[in-house]
């Protein structure tokens, strides 16, 4: 198969999967696209939005469009780590001898929907850490691999914070993107009403298998990125650190901790998927700019002043990107700007 054919196949698969999801989900095209980008980049995605915007439905629909095993965990304060990972139970064999047998938890699935993840205690949230990063879990001293591809899609509600545990930074960092699900527009709301109150439910076709997703992930890593585009990604991530010598004023004033190197990885990997989905063979500056907010918004921790003044992290990321680009342009002679 030629490289052009491989890329074309990726584009077709991407669009087909998005079309299947959009049979059910009205609007939210950007969110759907970013979820798919996160999946093909090999990361996990956190969806944040008020109740009723279709976060859970989006993930369920996505799982229906893929020939994957799917688990859903409704996170509650009394959920325990063993409820997620699994535990050893005593079983009796045919000869009447008793022995321990590992009972797999719901984490052993290709797609894991962690619904309202911030309602569980940090201890339980941390049960996902190893699985999300390493692709395996350790129970009773034995490491057990998770099915591949393994894709965690978590949801959380930004309001009704009573009885919630904000995700620890270590866990937030493991999500490649944090997506903010917006409220639908009037036309979209009309379409939602028409679609969901119809007599016949919409059926979603399975358009992709696990091995296909893995092959596409390999293709994503082959996409070349020019050094100046990579440098821009690094500069943007560095500019989120207030102690960096070239950090913009907004960062110095409002940011306590900047994005980790995972932020730069997320930015570049996401940009590669976006480029491929667009039918391009290389990463462009526009790809980075489009994914800067989803990749960095949860990795920037505001300081006291930033929180007190209710600084919008998305706007801050936009300012940082703009400032870095301006700085780069200023360093060039006017003929080359």
């Amino acid at each position, binding site marked *: 198969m030629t490289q052009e054919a491989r890329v074309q196949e990726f584009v077709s698969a991407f669009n087909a999967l998005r079309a299947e999801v959009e049979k059910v989900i009205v609007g939210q095209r950007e969110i759907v696209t970013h979820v798919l980008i996160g999946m093909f980049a090999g990361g996990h995605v956190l969806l944040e939005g008020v109740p009723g915007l279709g976060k859970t439905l989006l993930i369920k629909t996505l799982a229906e469009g893929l020939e994957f095993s799917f688990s859903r965990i409704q996170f509650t304060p009394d959920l325990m780590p063993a409820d997620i990972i699994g535990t050893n139970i005593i079983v009796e064999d045919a000869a009447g001898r008793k022995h321990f047998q590992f009972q797999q938890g719901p984490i052993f699935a290709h797609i894991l929907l962690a619904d309202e993840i911030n309602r569980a205690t940090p201890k339980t949230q941390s049960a996902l850490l190893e699985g999300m990063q390493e692709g395996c879990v350790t129970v009773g001293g034995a490491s057990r691999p998770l099915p591949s591809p393994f894709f965690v899609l978590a949801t959380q509600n930004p309001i009704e914070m009573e009885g919630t545990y904000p995700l620890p930074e270590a866990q937030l960092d493991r999500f490649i993107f944090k997506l903010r699900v917006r409220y639908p527009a009037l036309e979209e709301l009309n379409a939602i009403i028409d679609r969901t109150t119809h007599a016949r439910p919409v059926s979603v076709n399975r358009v992709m298998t696990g091995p296909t997703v893995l092959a596409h992930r390999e293709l994503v890593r082959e996409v070349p990125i020019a050094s100046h585009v990579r440098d821009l990604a690094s500069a943007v991530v560095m500019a989120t650190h207030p102690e960096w010598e070239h950090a913009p004023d907004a960062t110095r004033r409002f940011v306590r901790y900047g994005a980790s190197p995972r932020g730069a990885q997320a930015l570049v990997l996401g940009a590669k998927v976006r480029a491929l989905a667009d039918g391009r063979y290389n990463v462009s500056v526009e790809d980075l700019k489009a994914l800067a907010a989803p990749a960095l918004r949860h990795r920037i921790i505001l300081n006291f002043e930033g929180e*007190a003044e209710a600084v919008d992290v998305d706007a801050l990321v936009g300012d940082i990107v703009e400032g870095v680009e301006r700085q780069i342009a200023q360093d060039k002679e006017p003929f080359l700007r």
Partner: protein
Amino acid sequence: MPDGSGPHPEALEGLVRRITAQVRWRRAEHYALRGAFYGAVAGVVALVLKVAFGAWALVAAGALVPLGLAAGAVWGLAKRVSPTEAARLADRAFGLQDRVATALEWSNRPDRTPLVAALVADATARVGAVEPRQIVPRVLPREVWWLPVPALAALVLALGPPVPLLTGRFPDLSPLSESEEPTDRSGGELVQQDRRSLPKDALRKPAFDERDFVQRAGTGGAATAGDLSAIFKDTSLATQRPDFNSFLKKGDERLRLLEQVDRLPDLQSDFTASQYKMVFRKSKALTGGLRPDQISPKKLRELLEEMERLGRKGGGSWGSDVAEGMEALEYGQQDRALEAMEKALNKLRAMEEAQRSGKGLRGGRESERGARGERNRGRGASGADEQDFGEGEGLLPGKGKSPSAKGDASQRLRANAYDVGVEGEARRGRKEGYDTNMTGQGGKMPSRLLYMGVIGQYRKAMEDALAREQVPRDYHEQIKDYFQALDER
């Protein structure tokens, strides 16, 4: 150049060469103009020396301009243009989304992926479809605007008589002659006024002195007492021209500024933030852009009281600063009170920062719980449940860092009749009523909100509600009586 096995981006290199040539020509124009300017300046110098050089000065002046022009052009053409920069320029100008720069860079790399060949082919195809045009902007040097000056000067000098050269005589530094006796100017009225020392206010800080004397642009005259516009004089809004249309339509920033000081609590944001942040925000709203004498002492006092309450409740160390601020307010020294408030705010902020969790550090809940546990131990609290859980924790799921809309949970009282009681006495006055106090353990618990801190806001809300007819007319008197009774306390 690419090696034998890699893709061959000749078309891309051709495009880059064309762009490089464009950059060189633009540079040549730029530097040629600069050279012409400096050549003209040198020509003027030559013409000034016409007395010494004679007719050669005219020749030199005429030759220096084209010489400078040519030198500049050669310099511009000779300067190196990076192919990578030229490729990026082409990408931006033709909307190629970094294809050319990436293809050129990766086609030479040994670790190129199979996709690079496809990228080169794609970029070549797109470059072939591009309409060739000038994409490098013309950048005129600043000197070009001043070029007529030396040109005119040269013309005048060329046509006019030669300028006489200086003779080289040193100035006469000998002592003054008898006839030129120095006059005593110290007796003048103006000098006397200058000598008079200005009265100094010992309590005023230098920073505020400076702010008093140095008026910002567009502020107009001095502020008079009771002049509402005075609050804008020292802000960035002072330089803005009023736009009455927008003022009426959607509210001017000045209106918002006025509202900030005593606005109603924003239930969505204020109560989800910590009380420390609320105090911080209030202090910013109170002091933002205003001079000390423009800040309401009442509001300042309320803020200081709230900080004092927070200090008592949270074990903060800013009590002495707050006390100093209150004392300063008693004596009418607002600048000193503000300074004390700043100090207290810094301590408050430091404590809040210290309590917050950080990356790789102990979690917020853990540190909060630990700190609270230590405080409880310090107070001699006993009992297993009190050691394990902080105030209200363990009884409410998820209590911890949760920025609850209801604020921090109150301490749970046990089902003991002696835990809480109410005592009261009748009050005489225009409006009769009862003054009540809580007794027992309940009486020791701090209030969630300082009563005097919110009563003003509620009174304003009441007045608004009455003005907007949101309350049935029959109840108006009753409500007003209630608030009046509160005033009499």
